[in-house]
């Protein structure tokens, strides 16, 4: 559905772990229009510095309550300003933007005969929660494989558990779950004979590893990509990634992450270059 500009009221805003914030916004029209995997542009400043909005994924969409929730990592100036917003204040956002995940029942995605596996790296878990909610609502909650540098980086995991998702964790320092990388967790997957469909969001290196694993095994795999964005609307061409060209005589083309993505089938993406 078409994006709109919303003046959203902050309902609550908490630091769930060090530098990781969850903000819930009242934005009924937005909540009605959004689907898992889409994102917003968030204005973090009323002045010209910082200038540009920040793209943040939808982490929870509640059309009945008329709210949406974001989960974000405070990494720089923009997110630091956002973190100062208090309940009751208004912030300007526009969305929903981009194309979301393929949901149960969508083309190529049978609701029951597959097992959805969400693979999250760090804050990449944010857009995976509404996806898990969609699968959970068709009685097939799936599996979350979640990795991070340390325990401090693992967030929102319980929100998956309460939706019936089977959760397996890995940390690079062993402070929580498996001592190692999230990719290691595939060795012990409780697949019960069903075909997995992978959904992944996180650092580029991880996405590539998951894509290669999926290719090896012949599994479907969707990735949510990130790139610096000017507009979020497909107009400025800041945010491209290389994808396989459909046009004859062309090997690759630049797709816009903001409107052609952020979710792509991993096999559409050109990973080395």
């Amino acid at each position, binding site marked *: 559905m078409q994006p709109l500009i919303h003046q959203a009221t902050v309902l609550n805003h908490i630091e769930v772990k060090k530098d990781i914030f969850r903000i819930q916004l009242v934005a009924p029209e937005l909540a009605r229009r959004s689907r898992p995997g889409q994102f917003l542009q968030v204005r973090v400043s009323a002045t010209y510095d910082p*200038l540009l909005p920040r793209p943040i994924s939808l982490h929870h969409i509640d059309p009945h309550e008329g709210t949406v929730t974001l989960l974000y990592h405070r990494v720089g100036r923009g997110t630091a300003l956002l973190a100062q917003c208090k309940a009751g204040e208004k912030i300007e956002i526009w969305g929903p933007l981009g194309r979301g995940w393929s949901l149960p029942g969508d083309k190529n995605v049978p609701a029951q005969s597959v097992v959805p596996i969400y693979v999250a790296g760090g804050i990449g878990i944010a857009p995976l929660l509404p996806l898990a909610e969609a699968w959970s609502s068709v009685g097939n909650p799936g599996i979350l494989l979640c990795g991070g540098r340390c325990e401090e980086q693992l967030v929102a995991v319980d929100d998956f558990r309460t939706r019936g998702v089977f959760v397996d964790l890995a940390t690079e320092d062993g402070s929580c779950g498996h001592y190692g990388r999230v990719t290691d967790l595939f060795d012990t997957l409780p697949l019960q004979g069903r075909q997995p469909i992978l959904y992944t969001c996180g650092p580029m290196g991880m996405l590539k590893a998951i894509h290669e694993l999926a290719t090896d095994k012949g599994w479907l795999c969707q990735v949510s990509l990130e*790139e610096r964005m000017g507009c979020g609307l497909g107009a400025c061409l800041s945010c491209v990634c290389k994808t396989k060209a459909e046009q004859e005589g062309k090997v690759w083309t630049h797709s816009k992450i903001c409107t052609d993505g952020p979710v792509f089938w991993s096999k559409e993406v050109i990973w080395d270059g």
Partner: protein
Amino acid sequence: MADLAVNLGGLAMKNPVTTASGTFGFGVEFEPFVDLRRLGAIVVKGTTLEGREGNATPRMAETAAGMLNAIGLQNPGIEAFIKNHLPPLEPLGTPVIVNISGNTLEEYGDLTAIIDQCAGIAAIEVNISCPNVKQGGIQFGTSPCMAADVTKMVRKHTNKPVIVKLSPNVTDITEMARAVEDAGADAVALINTLLGMAIDVERRRPQLANTFGGLSGPAVKPVALRMVYQVYKAVSLPILGMGGIMSSRDALEFIMAGATAVAVGTANFTNPRATMDIVEGIESFCEREGLSSIQELIGAAHT
């Protein structure tokens, strides 16, 4: 209500507000936010003879009150533009201005010849100032002779209004404006982006894959405004002013400096409704000041 209509070198616009090439896609991207019928004109993304994929990423970096871009003229090529992107704009009735770039003089000529045949295109904006491509682009924009040659080549192939877009990366902008005036341009557009860069201190590398990029946004407004003021004094061509216009007050500053029309660029990213807000703001300023026509404001800051 004041009459906002202006004439930009033969192009009739119902109001002075248009979009800066490369910041408004092909127009339809902004349809959720903007009534495209209310724009004075729509300037679309820079097109070239053949389609281009542009530069590698990162292509964008934020700076203080500005942004750097190094898109590198990614576009589907003029034929694909006319076939796929122009048709949705035609029913609107808003004039479409196509921004063109070539690697060679001949390419400018060929592009113009194609556009000249296309009834749906109202005017041509000639980009001789793109800082982000290896060939052509900026060289044409920093030498008065080459700028004149490009202008003549385009002029030769069309009777549509020709707006030549100047680069601010020059010692004397008035010299460039005079050169393209003498060469037959109907209007000048200024400014394109200022050449800039940013460095990632942690990686000790330029932030943009392309090293340099074009600076736009409020940061450049004082430079853009100064150049519009200077060019207004130097030539009699109408000016399409741009560079950091974020609000109707900014737009009015450009008009008072001498711009007949203004283009809204980076502001579209910080407020997708920016063009509409600016049209409305100009309307209410004229009303408040009791003006019968926007013409009274063009160049008003000159003594």
